[in-house]
C-alpha cells in the first residue's frame, strides 16, 4: 500500500494542477484573444448599456412585441441565473393547464387568428432561456404585432425573413428567429 500512496497522491496533485488550473487558464487566455465577445457572453449593448445577450432569450408579453418560448425558470421567467425546464410529463395535468393558458393568451391578444398554433410557441423550452422561435411561430404573430403597431403586414413579413437564420451550414439544426434581435429591430423601425 505504501508504495502506492506516494505515487497516487503526487500524481493526483500534479495532474489536478494541469487539468484544473493550467488547462482552464490556457483556454481562457486563448479565448479572450481570439473570441473575446463570445467568451464574455455575446452581450448586446445599446447606448453604452448592456441590454441582453444574443444567446439568451428575454420575456415578452406585450402585444406589440413578438413573444418567445414560454419559460419555466423561477421565480420569474427567463431567469438567466437559474436555468430550468418544466420537467412536466406528457400526461401531467399541469402541462395541459399551462398550455391552455398560453393558447388562451394568444387568442385573447388576437381573436381573429384561426391559424394552427405552432407547438414551440406554447411549450416551455429546455433551458427556460431559449432565444429562438421557429419562423412559423413568428409568422403566426405578424397580424397581432402589425395591428398593435399600425404597421403593414408586408413589412413585418420582410423583417422576419431578414431575421430568419436557416439551418447552420445548410444542414445543422432548425431554421429559427432570434426574438430579442427581432424585437430590437422592430423598435428601431419607423
Amino acid at each position, binding site marked *: 500500500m505504501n508504495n*502506492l500512496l*506516494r505515487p497516487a497522491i*503526487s*500524481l*493526483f496533485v500534479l*495532474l489536478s494542477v*494541469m*487539468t*484544473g*488550473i493550467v488547462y*482552464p487558464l*490556457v*483556454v*481562457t487566455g*486563448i479565448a479572450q484573444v*481570439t473570441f473575446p465577445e463570445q*467568451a464574455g*457572453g455575446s*452581450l448586446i449593448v445599446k447606448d453604452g448599456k*448592456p*441590454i441582453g*445577450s444574443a444567446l*439568451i432569450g*428575454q420575456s*415578452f408579453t406585450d402585444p406589440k412585441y413578438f413573444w418567445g418560448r414560454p419559460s419555466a425558470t423561477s*421565480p*420569474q421567467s427567463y*431567469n438567466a*441565473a*437559474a*436555468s430550468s425546464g*418544466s*420537467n*412536466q*410529463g*406528457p*400526461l401531467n395535468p399541469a402541462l*395541459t393547464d399551462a398550455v391552455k393558458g398560453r*393558447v388562451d393568451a394568444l387568442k385573447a391578444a388576437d381573436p381573429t387568428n384561426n391559424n*394552427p*398554433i*405552432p*407547438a*414551440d410557441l406554447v*411549450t*416551455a*423550452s*429546455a*433551458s*427556460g*432561456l431559449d*432565444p429562438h422561435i421557429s419562423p412559423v411561430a413568428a409568422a403566426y404573430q405578424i397580424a397581432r404585432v402589425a395591428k398593435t403597431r399600425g404597421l403593414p403586414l408586408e413589412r413585418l413579413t420582410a423583417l422576419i425573413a431578414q431575421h430568419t437564420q436557416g439551418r*447552420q451550414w445548410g*444542414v*445543422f*439544426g*432548425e431554421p*429559427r428567429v432570434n426574438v430579442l434581435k427581432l*424585437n*430590437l429591430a422592430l423598435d428601431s423601425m419607423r
Partner: protein
Amino acid sequence: MNNHAWLMLGLYLTILLLTVKPLGSYIADVMEGRGFAPRLGGGFEALLYRLCGIRKDEEMGWLKYVFAILIFNVLGVLAVYALQRLQVWLPLNPQSMANVSADSSFNTAISFATNTNWQGYAGESSMSYLTQMLGLTVQNFFSAATGIVVVIALIRGFARHTAKTIGNAWVDLTRITLYVLLPMSLVFAIFLVGQGVIQNFDGYKDVTTIEVTKYDNPKVDAAGQPLKDEKGNAVTAPATTQTQTLAMGPVASQEAIKMLGTNGGGFFNANSAHPYENPTPLANFLQMLAIFLIPAALCFTFGRMVGDTRQGWAVLAAMTLMFVVMAVAAMYFEQQGNPQLGKLGVDMAGGNMEGKEARFGITDSGLFATITTLASCGAVNAMHDSFMPLGGLVPLTSMMLGEVVFGGVGSGLYGMLVFAIMAVFIAGLMIGRTPEYLGKKIEAYEMKMVSIAILVTPLLVLLGTAVAVMVADGIAGIANPGAHGFSEILYAFTSAANNNGSAFAGLSANTPFYNIMTAIAMWFGRFGVIVAVLALAGGLAAKKRIAVSAGTMPTHGALFVTLLIGTVLLVGALNYVPALALGPVIEHLVLFTTH
C-alpha cells in the same frame, strides 16, 4: 422521421466512422508509449514520474492495478467533497456561493469520480468557479482516464499470454490524460467558444431588459425557508424586475471534457440545453460527435492491440446497429407530438416541443438523447422528463442495456467485451464445446467475473427503485403524477447505477435520501464492475494462448455480431421488462387510448 432526420443520422455515422481508425490507432500507440506524442512529451512525462516516484517500467499485477485505481479515485472523492464544503472561504467565488450541504457534496463527489455526473444541485446557483474547475473539471478528466485505462488493461489481458502483469496504472493514467484527453479538450474548448460558449471568470452580469417582467416572488421566513400556507402552497407576493442576471464562468473548458470524456455534468442546471453551454446547431453536432468519438475509436484500439482489427470492427458493428435502431425510435416518437395538446388547437406537426430548444428541434434533441444515454454521458440538450412515453423509453432502455453500446469512454468497451465473453459462452453451451475468445479459454473463473460485472448494475437499479417506491422519502421526490412518477424513480436509479447521469429531472433528488441512495448505486455500479473486469484481465493475461482450430467460433463475422446483439438485448430485456411495463408502457397506453 423526415428526410432531415435521416440526413443527420447518416452524416453523424459517416463522420464518426471516419474518425475511428486514425484516433483508435493513435490511442493504441500512446498507450504503448509509441508514436510522436510520447516522443514529444517524453521529457515532461519522465519529470512527472520522477517527482511522483513512479518507475514506469515496473508493471502491476491485477490486484495492485485495482488498488492504484481505487486510491486515485478515492482521492478524487475527497478533493471534490472538500472543495464544496470549503468553497465560501476559497478564491474564485465571485457570487459568494455558500458551502454545499454534506449530503449533496458527498453525492456530487461520488458522482463525478464515477464518471456519472448525476447532478442533484444546480451549477449556477451552488458551485464556485474554483469548485467547478479544480473539483469537477479535474474529475471529468480523471474519471474518463480511469475508464480508458481499465479497458486497456483488459485488452492487455487478451493480448498477453502467461503474463503476471497488465500494465502500470500510473503510466496509463498519465499518458491518456496528457496525450489524448488534454489536447483534444483544448482544441474542442476553443472551437466551442467560437460558437458562443462562454469562458471567463467575471461575476454574473446584470443587463436591463426591454420589457419589465412581472412575477410572483415566493416569501421566505426569517430563516430563509419558503413560507407555505395551510394548504402547503408557497406564499408569494407580486413583483417586477427589469434586470436579467446572466450567469458566467469558465464554461467552455469544462464543456469540452464533459463531452469527450462521456461525463455529462453541466456547468449550468440546464446542461447542454443552456445557450451558453451549447449555443448553435453546429456546436451541438460536434458535442454529439465528441460523446461517441473515443468509445468508437477504442474498438479499433482493441483490434489493433489484440492483433486482429476485424475483432474491433465486429464489436463496433454490433454497437452501431443497436444505436441506429434506438436513434430512429427516439426521433420518431418525439415527432409524433402530444395528443393532449393537439386537442387544445396546437399544431401537432411541430412534434413534442415541451422541454426542447427551438434551435435543435425534434431531430437534434432525439438524436442527442439517444447518444448521451447509450454512451454513459448523461449530458442533455432537451428535458427527458418531458419526452413522450415511448420517446422517454429510448433513453431509459439505452441505459438499461448496461452502457455497452459505445458506452462510457473505456467502460463501454469493457462492458461490451464482458458481453462478448458471455456470448461465446452461450454459443459454447449450445454446441457443447469449451468456449474461447481471442485465443483464451473461457472457464469457471472468467464466467464468475463476467456474471458479477453483468449483474451488479441491474441489482442496484431494481433494489434501489424498489426501496425508493416503498419509503416516504422516496415518494416525496416525485414531480409528475401517475406512472410517470414511477418512471422518474426508475430512471434515477438506472442512470446512477449505470453511471450515466442524465435524469427525469422533475424528481427532487437533492435530499439526503436520494443523495445517499444514488451515491451508493453510482459507486458500486462503477467500481463493482471495474474490480471484476480487472480480475478478469489478470486471469486472462495468465492464460496460455490456444491455437485456432476447426472448433473455434470466429468472432469477427456477422454470426458473432448477431449473437452479441442478442446477448445484450436478452440480458437487458430479462432484467427490466417488468419495470418498464409499470412505467413508460402504461403511460403510453393511457395517453393514446383515453382519447
